[in-house]
């Protein structure tokens, strides 16, 4: 059987599964998978499906916390010439899901969000989402650079590092983020090695 036939057969085999999966891709960039209750059941065990459904069916963060997460996520990954912002890629929904999936994130996130609001109240008399964009950036700048942060800001630095990791994971594993990185795989093809012009560029 030649390669073309092989790929054709793949299409036939996959009609119900791969294409079915594609149909459930979030077509607009605001729908994250956590909001999408139709997870492709292919290859999933019953207890996994039940657990995913149960996690998606309850909320951990309250609306204020969720709004703060969205604001922070968009400061960490804003819209630029390449792609949209973290919240446009569904990052707040991903963070809501992952803290229920991996509960070790819950306390550091909840406590960190509260720490941030208290710091803003002390400094600007408003909570984080009530601050002006300039005030938000001023606070974030104090906790975003571990080597420059003042000693009293360590709790904020720890929180922000986690928030930044979860935001980056959520963004760069979304459809928008994967396209932004320029990942070209996950598609049937023929691997014939690194293209000659690339080998030449690196002197290989």
């Amino acid at each position, binding site marked *: *059987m*030649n390669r073309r*036939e*092989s*790929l054709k*057969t*793949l299409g036939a*085999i*996959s009609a119900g*599964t*791969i294409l079915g*999966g594609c149909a*459930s*891709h979030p077509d607009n960039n605001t729908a*994250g*998978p956590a909001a999408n209750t139709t*997870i*492709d059941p*292919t*290859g999933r065990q019953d*207890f*996994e499906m039940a657990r995913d459904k149960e*996690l998606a069916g309850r909320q951990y963060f309250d609306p204020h916390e969720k709004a703060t997460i969205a604001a922070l996520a968009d*400061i960490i*990954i804003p819209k*630029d010439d*390449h792609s949209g912002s973290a919240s446009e890629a569904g990052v707040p929904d*991903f963070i809501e899901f*992952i803290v229920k*999936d*991996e509960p070790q994130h819950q306390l550091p996130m909840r406590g960190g969000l509260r720490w941030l609001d208290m710091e803003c109240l002390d400094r600007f008399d408003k909570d984080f989402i009530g601050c002006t964009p300039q005030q938000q950036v001023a606070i974030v700048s104090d906790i*975003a*650079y571990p*080597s*420059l942060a003042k000693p009293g800001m360590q709790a904020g630095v720890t929180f922000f*590092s986690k928030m*930044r990791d979860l935001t*980056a*994971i959520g963004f*760069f*594993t979304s*459809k928008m983020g*994967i396209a*932004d*990185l*320029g*990942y*070209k*795989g*996950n598609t*049937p*093809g023929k*691997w014939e*090695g*690194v*293209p000659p012009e*690339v080998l030449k*560029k*690196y002197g*290989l």
Partner: protein
Amino acid sequence: MQLIKNAAVYDVVIIGSGAGGGMAGYVLANAGIKVLMLEAGPFFDPAKDSQQLKWSYQSPRRGGNATRPMGDFDAAFGGWQIDGEPYTQKDGSDFQWFRSRMLGGRTNHWARISLRMGPRDFKCRTAFGDGDDWPITYEEISPYYDKVDRLIGVYGSVEGLPNDPDGIFLPPPPPRLGEHFVKKAVTAQGIKVIAGRGSVLTAPLPGNKDRQPCFYCGQCNRSCKIYGDFSSSSCLVIPAIKTGNLTVTSNAVVREILTGDDGLASGVSYINKDDGQEYRIRARTVILAASTCESARILLNSRSTRHPNGLANSSNAVGKYLHDSTQGGAGVAVLPQLFDRPRFNEDGVGSLHLYSPWWLDGKKLPFARGYHLEIFGGMWMPGYGGYFGFEGAVVPYLNGYIPRRDGKMKPGGGFGASLKDDYRRFYGSIAGLGCHGASTAREDNYCEIDPNVVDKYGIPVLRFRYKWSSDDIAQAKHMQETAQAVVHAMGGIPLVQPQGPETNYGLDKPGKGIHEVGTVRMGDDPKKAPLNKWGQANDCKNLFVTDGSVFTQQSEKNPTWTILALSMRTAEFIIDQRKKRNL
């Protein structure tokens, strides 16, 4: 609850559907023998059940590992812990036991690395002064390796190395970009780098119309919808079912092998997880292939007046000589020369593109056996968890040490458009190598029945005792030195800090290699080994074992290809013995 006894007598009952059980079933069914295969987990057909080509965002945890230790898309059900089926430790041991209870067993998640053991490996006592010699030679098993190569398919390059025998190879896949850099750095250490050897169809497999060549998604661990790689389900069990001679009973958890007054195996007792009932079936021959530790557990739980300390255990060796490969080195690095690298599809195959066989055989070293290098690097699908996780996690730590494109430095961490750009810049720049070596089988590394604990089916569970030896630790130290030298030579920024003696120089916990073997070993002396050189129990001639437990002594070569060759050889021996009416 009922005890259901089936009056039918099967020619052969096989316990387990992984590499060892699958191969035995395939050979016997194709010889016209009626076979019943018992599998402790559900049926699984990669053509229907694989999660191949799903995107990270089709998982709410983006491929994370909260419910599957190797990530959401990995084919293997089960993991290091299974609810209601515990195992225990003694003497401060921390053996990690990976179980995959499903059709195909642990062939569902493995990296398809398919290496032959060499002539010196089978005679390790003679060759290295270490471990025990096998009761067979490379020359005896070599024709079976050839047959496995032709039946299943393996890619590689012909090298003519004395203790890393060549196979009948399909063309190997070329390296990815990052792997070229690792190869240069490894070669600079005086270490030979050759093509990987993996059971992935890089070309059509002659004579096989049911499997199609690889389409290069690099996702073998998810199992393959077109059967382009080796899984026991797709390549052995499902074809065996099609002969009409093999039947699979899934969700059948074996309690014990039953024996008659004559001491011979008479059948198997199992619980069916679907209906909760207890079953007893009869068989003329029993083949045990439940995985290295589970097979020992079943034998030790199969006590009778004729076999008071467990079946096939007059040698008292069942459960002993447990040994997993050493795993260390962890030479993972970011390569700054790959920042802003060109984008193209370099998923490749889901097995090894490049590796280095053990290169210091015969040199004076503080340890007896060797290890090999597995080289990796590439632009993987961004995901969370799984084998590599999200490489972006290192970006806000490393960006303070790397000059920007304009040559200036900035503080590490950050946020906003500049950070977003750093993630792009770093993407696809991780490469490195892992080290996997041979550990020596020892009588005092073992699993045994814990007298105090049963699982949710009431079956007594295993208790592990496993300590790395000073030899294993010396090997891990050498691995780390090699890995560090390679990372340094390629100008990489190491992502793993070197470790000292307090953590065994980064040597992973025993079991984590998922190459454990040796608990029901073959040997020449029935007083010392449960099995003869055909995998036949010395105490019970109609009982055979065909999984990794039969290994007398592992080598640094991953065990699956040897399990397949030995299982094929045992199955052919059974056919011969049936013809001679010895069974």
